[in-house]
């Protein structure tokens, strides 16, 4: 394999092969939002059960490519048990990583280094930035989760 190591890191392939928190939750009590990637036909469903604004349970349904599935799987691990505000904060940092230009990757790396393990497994997705079409795949689950935050807050 040449050059794809940055994209298809072992952690990513692991989350793709054995996705965490995959499945559905009954609505209600769960809140569900669905997101689409019109480019490739992928769709993702995010189910969340909240208690006092704390994410008690989260599940991912739908189907998609390795990047969208792995990213959604990692997302569930990174927000489970967190408050919505904390989850939002993780999302902001993830978005920032995804929007860093390829040339800024090194500086992005150093700023991430300052907050070690802040994004955990998610940092493996950094390589996606080099493949602009795939950024939409990586953010699909997150944007769908963001719709849930919006619906709760409004």
């Amino acid at each position, binding site marked *: *394999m*040449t*050059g*794809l190591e940055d*994209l*298809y890191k072992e952690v990513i*392939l692991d989350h793709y092969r054995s996705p965490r928190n995959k499945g559905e939750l009954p609505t209600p009590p769960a809140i569900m939002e669905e997101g689409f990637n019109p*480019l*490739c*036909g*992928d769709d993702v469903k995010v189910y969340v059960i909240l208690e006092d604004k704390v994410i008690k349970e989260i599940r991912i349904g739908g*189907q*998609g*490519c*390795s*990047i969208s599935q792995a990213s959604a799987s990692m997302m569930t691990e990174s927000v489970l048990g967190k408050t919505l505000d904390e989850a939002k904060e993780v999302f902001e940092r993830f978005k920032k990583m995804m929007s860093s230009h390829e040339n800024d990757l090194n500086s992005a790396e150093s700023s991430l280094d300052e907050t070690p393990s802040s994004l955990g497994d998610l940092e493996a997705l950094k390589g996606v930035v080099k*493949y602009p079409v*795939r950024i939409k*795949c990586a953010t699909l689950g997150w944007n769908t989760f963001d719709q849930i935050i919006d619906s709760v807050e409004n």
Partner: protein
Amino acid sequence: MSKSIFDPQVIKKEFPLLERSVNDNPIVYLDSAATSQKPIEVIERMNDYYKEINANVHRGAYHIAELATEEVEETRRKVHRFINSNSEKEIIFTKNATEAINLVSYSWARSQLTDGDVILLSSLEHHSNIVPWQQLSSERDIEIRWIPITHDGQLDLDNIDELLKGVKLLCVTAVSNALGTINPVKKLVEAAHKVGALCLVDACQSTPHFETDVTDLGADFIAFSGHKMCGPTGIGVLWGRLEILENMPPFLGGGEMILNVTSDGFTANELPWKFEAGTPPIAEIIGLGVAISYLEKIGMGAIREHEQKLTSYALQMLNDRFGNDLIIHGPQNPIDRSGVLSLSYRDVHPHDLSQVLDQYGVCVRAGHHCCKPLMKLMGLNATARASLYIYNDESDIDVLADAINEAGKIFA
């Protein structure tokens, strides 16, 4: 026309883009169903137009304006001969096939169809030949009905007489861009005419690959795009039967499409200019003309023969090499299909498959190919589509196969 000797190696050299590399590998371009590459003749002629005769058409009475006008009208005659139509007045230049279909929808359908009428679509249509009709049916009480497909992606015509009841317009693609299925268009046109319906044929995936004869086909409208047949983007064609076009109101209004304008109103121009509002894409029209000459020089029969042979090779070789791990959707007999290979490889997502292929310089398209209703019927979310053209040969298929194999290793 005498049969030319077909050599993809020679043809490849006439396409400058195919000399480049991608990710340090020679490019293997397998996405001609999306858009074809352009031969040097087309590129240079368009450049020359801007360098030597650029002027607006149908307006100036000076030398270069006359030259530009003549080139545009010469291309119209070329298209007329290429599809064997009755008259060059039947050739309308549009921006692409999508605009051509919308022209029929806005001008013909909106002036002819009323509440209760039915439009029959094949289940193999591209969104371009679906959405304009859905837009119409959201404005009026017009029913959209679908011709079903068999499991291998061919039209199921068992109940066609029943389906055609009350139909005013049948819309069918000559060849499916998602599966490669070649449809029995002539038979469908006859069936449509029997119930008094018109037939619009989406010829996007047929004009680049085999002979088009609208007189033999008997259709009422055909639409196609220049960019899939060695021509530039920005130019498409609507062909319609003269007596139908004559009775249609103009679509877009503006310059070119009028004979006279007063403060009280306008008189529409004659055909074909009645449907060509504004300054046309002159360089693109000229480029299309060169592309048609280029294809004719090779010979449409020779092109079809080459693609069919290559498709047979691909079906056989991929099947031998990957067995049940690789599904090639659509008809299994190469006679029933064009050079479109819609692939599912194990459970590797098409997006991932195409990403790995790209690493090896192989360009294929992953997704729903603008055919979401069809994909749903086939039980698919997406496929990876490799599509062949004149410049492809067996070595391209071999590289494709090797790259698929590499994807298998990553997603083992």
